[in-house]
């Protein structure tokens, strides 16, 4: 991709890291409990297995592990971080920000802006936009955007095959940028496709309503608007990442927009780890950055129920060759490091048996 005539301000990703809990449960093991055909469900959803958090893991611990991985890869002093925004729909506390725990655990406190974000599965990409804006405005040198979740689905619900755990963290700045964010925009409406009321443990969803008027409409419009603004076409991109609630939606939306499976597959992790909600598109982006080369152009569109999409047009710079990517595990390594659990252990680990 030619970088000639590139006049945009060089703000973007400085480093990145991710965390995926190492326990997995296979879709067919869940299906067997409910008397369903596991192979048919796996094929239908495009999900073979999903990650399961341990009883001692939550969105705060996953966020801390992800940003610590990002810090290992670079030489940034944590006290130079001016803001931390954590996006999740499973913050451990309803009132008490996850970002405060993360800030303390990386030694970035106390001269620090912190807030938790909530926008279903796109809260983490909203955090990237906030950090980008703060850096661009000159209010901070570096900001941290995290998307992480330990999502739950009611036992027996269709979402039980996909709701999983994981997260990714991105340091946004204007020095040693490994991937510039050339353009970002969002597309937002009031669409009740999926929700969870404040006092409820498990979410509710609008069934078939989750597809066409929600996921597809928002991603397609956001992606199209972004390419118009950037003056690009699908063929201009090396990689494309879309929110991945299952293995089918992102592939279908990519095709509809004119992207190929070759552009999508590096960032498509849902078949092996399930839907990590706020972590989903960001873990996909981390997987792309694990292998990206200078000049690669990256397209990303997240989706959050409720509903909205955030789009990003990014270009990988020469600095990526100087980032110590090997100092933290790649997404492929995190995916490969696993141990299977049975349904009983899964129920115990995710506290399925507890309700008030």
């Amino acid at each position, binding site marked *: 991709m030619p970088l000639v005539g590139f006049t945009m301000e060089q703000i973007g990703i400085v480093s990145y890291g991710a965390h995926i809990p190492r326990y997995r449960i296979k879709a067919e093991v869940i299906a067997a409990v409910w008397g369903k055909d596991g192979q048919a469900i796996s094929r239908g959803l495009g999900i073979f297995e999903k990650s399961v958090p341990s*009883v001692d893991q939550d969105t705060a*611990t996953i966020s801390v*592990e992800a940003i610590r991985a990002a810090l290992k890869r670079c030489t940034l002093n944590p006290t130079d971080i001016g803001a931390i925004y954590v996006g999740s729909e499973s913050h451990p506390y309803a009132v008490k920000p996850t970002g405060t725990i993360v800030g303390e*655990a990386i030694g970035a406190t106390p001269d620090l802006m912190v807030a938790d974000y909530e926008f279903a599965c796109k809260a983490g990409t909203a955090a990237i936009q906030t950090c980008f804006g703060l850096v661009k405005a000159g209010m901070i040198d570096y900001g941290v955007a995290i998307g992480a979740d330990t999502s739950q689905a009611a036992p027996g619900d269709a979402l039980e095959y996909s709701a999983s755990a994981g997260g990714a963290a991105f340091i946004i700045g204007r020095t040693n940028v490994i991937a510039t964010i050339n353009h970002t925009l969002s597309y937002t409406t009031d669409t009740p496709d999926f929700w969870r009321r404040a006092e409820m443990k498990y979410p509710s969803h609008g069934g078939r309503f989750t597809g066409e008027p929600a996921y597809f409409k928002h991603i397609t419009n956001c992606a199209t608007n972004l390419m118009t603004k950037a003056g690009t076409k699908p063929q201009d991109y090396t990689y494309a990442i879309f929110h991945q609630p299952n293995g089918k939606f992102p592939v279908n939306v990519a095709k509809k927009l004119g992207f190929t499976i070759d552009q999508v597959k590096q960032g498509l992790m849902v078949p092996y780890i399930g839907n990590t909600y706020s972590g989903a598109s960001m873990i996909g982006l981390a997987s792309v950055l694990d292998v990206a080369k200078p000049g690669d152009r990256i397209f990303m569109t997240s989706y959050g129920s409720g509903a909205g999409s955030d789009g990003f047009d990014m270009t990988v710079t020469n600095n990526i060759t100087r980032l110590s990517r090997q100092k933290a595990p790649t997404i492929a390594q995190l995916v490969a490091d696993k141990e299977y659990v049975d349904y009983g252990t899964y129920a115990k680990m995710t506290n399925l048996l507890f309700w008030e």
Partner: protein
Amino acid sequence: MKAGVARFWREIPQRYNFIGNKCGTCERVFFPPRESCPYCRRKSIGNMKEIKLAGKGEVVTYTVIHVGPEDFEEQTPYPIAIIKLEEGPQITAQIVDCPLDEVKIGLKVESTFRKIQQDGHTGAIYYGYKFKKQRQ
């Protein structure tokens, strides 16, 4: 209430970031940090320097807990180890993400950030270090 919110809050630097200290006279490292060096005593007063430990070490000895205390019942059986940190101090901590038959004396471990305990379903959540196998 168990240990209490105030005590956990005071211990956050140790629990989150392995903040210990070092005697300026004999260079011994302490974790958790000490007011003075038990070897140099008066000579060390005002001469203790705060340091951040790497959170890496190896298993000196371990045991497997089959009947866990409150808050840990769901995790049994799990290994608890005495770990000698690279900087010298020895601490007791839980080993996670490791099959029981892979836990052994001499195993190289590194810290991981986990939930340690919580005051039931309504109280505070306490975070801190546990250990996992060191990444190759």
